[in-house]
């Protein structure tokens, strides 16, 4: 009987902790002293392990910025690689605290999959890539083609819609990861690879001679990519949201990886910058963090512009122009809410 008693108490206790675990992601992250960040299985420029096994890329840098703000150290990140299909289950089951994985914000993901989207950090759209040798110049010429498509993505749904509205047929070749897509495309199992234009740029850069592959002019969808957290923890959502906003505002105000900590140490004469880097006001406290949260996030990997240029910008193999992703006052649409 004693044993049964013990077992039952154990069961009851775990039941309680299991439920309590939902309460505060911030506390969980602090207790673990590590941020579990959901990323891709490997998409160079966005998130992929380098030769030393260190995750690099645009999404990886956002993970580190959040870790720097919350835990004080941008390296306290455990990267959780996921496919397009597993990412949301992983987030919702608590295998990750936050998600940065080329993820498009949509109504159904918000309302049905129960995700809360952080501000968009990359404006993208779906495109098509074909071998130049096929001589195709427009997506409307793709009737009857075999198309490699990553399952569990918005791009899979857009693809079905696009071919349907244009009344042309295709053979979907479903793949799980970008790597698998690349292999099938190279082998000629599919004539076309379609995904976010940024993903195409990353994949195209992998070829010895990228000029042998063309990205067709049609962009068939809006893919506003952003981070996400689980529904039900508004405090944690706010932290993610304002880290992203802080990085974008930092670019606008000229706060950089190099000067962020210095600015934070002295009260300057620009109150907006002072509030951002925490030399004035109590913005960090309001979020449940400390005053220097944003300064550390910026010092970790730089402001938005620095992260962009380093990972995906014109001087990287991906060569993606800023375009829509320039600041609102530089011809783009990045317009972050003010920190005040």
């Amino acid at each position, binding site marked *: 009987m004693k044993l049964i008693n013990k077992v039952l108490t154990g*069961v009851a206790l775990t039941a309680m902790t299991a*439920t309590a675990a939902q309460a505060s992601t911030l506390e969980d992250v602090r207790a673990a002293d590590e941020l579990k960040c959901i990323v891709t299985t490997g998409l160079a420029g966005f998130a992929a392990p380098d030769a030393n096994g260190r995750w690099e890329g645009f999404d990886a840098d956002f993970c580190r910025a959040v870790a720097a703000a919350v835990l004080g150290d941008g390296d306290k990140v455990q990267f959780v690689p996921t496919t397009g299909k597993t990412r949301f289950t992983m987030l*919702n089951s608590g295998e990750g605290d936050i998600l940065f994985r080329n993820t498009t914000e949509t109504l159904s993901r918000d309302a049905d999959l*129960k995700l809360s989207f952080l501000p968009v950090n990359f404006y993208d759209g779906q495109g098509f890539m074909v071998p130049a040798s*096929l001589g195709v110049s427009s997506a409307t010429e793709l009737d009857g083609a*075999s198309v490699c498509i990553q399952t569990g993505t918005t791009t899979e749904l857009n693809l*079905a819609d696009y071919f349907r509205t244009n009344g042309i047929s295709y053979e979907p*070749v479903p793949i799980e990861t970008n790597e698998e897509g690349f292999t099938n495309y190279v082998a000629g199992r599919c004539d076309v690879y379609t995904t976010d234009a940024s993903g195409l740029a990353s994949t195209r850069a992998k070829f010895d001679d990228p000029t042998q592959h063309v990205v067709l002019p049609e962009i068939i969808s809006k893919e506003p990519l952003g981070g996400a957290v*689980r529904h039900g923890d508004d405090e944690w959502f706010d932290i993610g949201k304002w880290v992203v906003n802080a990085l974008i505002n930092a670019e606008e105000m000229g706060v950089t990886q190099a000067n962020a900590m210095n600015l934070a140490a002295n009260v300057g004469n620009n109150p907006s910058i002072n509030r951002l880097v925490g030399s004035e006001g109590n913005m960090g406290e309001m979020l449940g963090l400390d005053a220097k949260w944003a300064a550390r996030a910026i010092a970790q990997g730089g402001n938005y512009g620095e992260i962009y240029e380093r990972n995906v910008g014109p001087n990287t193999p991906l060569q993606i122009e800023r375009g829509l992703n320039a600041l609102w006052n530089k011809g783009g649409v990045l317009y972050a809410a003010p920190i005040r």
Partner: protein
Amino acid sequence: MSTPTPSTNPLLRAWYDKETRSIIVQIIAAALILSFFAYIINNAVVNLAAIGKDISFNFLWQNASYDINQHLIEYSSTSNHFTAMIVGLINTLLVAAAGIVLATMLGFMLGVMRLSNNWLTQKIAYVYIEYVRNVPVLLHILLLHGLIINALPRPKGSYNFGDTFFLNNRGFQMPSPEFQSLFWIVGAFVVAGIAFAWWFSRHAQKVQDETGKAYPVAMINIAAIVLLPFAVYFVLGSPIEWDVPALKGFNFKGGIVVRPEFIALWLALSFYTAAFIGEIVRAGIVAINHGQTEAAQALGISNSRTLKLVVIPQALRVIIPPLTSQYLNLAKNSSLALAIGYMDIVATIGGISLNQTGREMECMLIVMAIYLAISLLISTVMNWYNNRIQLVER
């Protein structure tokens, strides 16, 4: 030593009674198991509720919005998730059934080869079995798929078999039949042929039992089921039109295509399972006392008839039970389809639908229920067959 005095406490007495005790233990065990499941389910429900999710199967009637390349029933992106599930189920059943047939044929061949007196034949079977069954089936699948998509030509350079069949890295293209209105007559002849064959086999058996006269049953039956309908088919002026595949743009249009994903999965599952079946068949045959073969030979019964009438019927009794579990393995291993993008039940309802709707619990329950049903179906059929071939004691 004194015998233990029966306790006066009725509870203790009940505990010392072997039968009551076993009942008590069983009740406790059942209670523990039930509370364990109750806990898991409650935990899931509570945690789902915490992020605002309920459990509901209504999503099955919403548009699936994604396309599936291999669908044997009508399906498009405007079909609902339920239809997508059926498409996936059919694909699972198709590859499992085709796999079971091929694995059985190969397996029996391997088993017999293993017992061959020919050194080379025996060694080939031995090496095959040892290699194939010691490499995980997933690797076989990936290897075959990689081979097909890399080694076979692209559609433009297809291997062309008489302008009718084509093989390339998009699959095997073949003509599909389009039945004309008169075709039902041919169908009727086939059905009639089968009915005749059934009657004729019994009749021939009876005649043989009574008079010892043996008809060429197999020949006559084949003539009834195959040759006669064929003759009728031509008399009616070939009432099938063939839709022959032809290269149009990127791919072949028309006909039926067997995709690389199906071929790779089907062959890999069959090759792999055949290695195990081969060993089972060998064990089954070895289990039959050699004296029986010798006795049959002494009676002047031919080798093939000895095998057919003496060895195989008895070996089957040893073979069927482990064969059943190989069939179950094959059916369940078919879920590795995911690795190469064959759209089975796991890839459709358990994969894309799950991800697009966020209904993890519901989709996984459906997939589990379906695999359970498939497994039970296989077991039932095999048990029925097993009972049928059991020794009837007279």
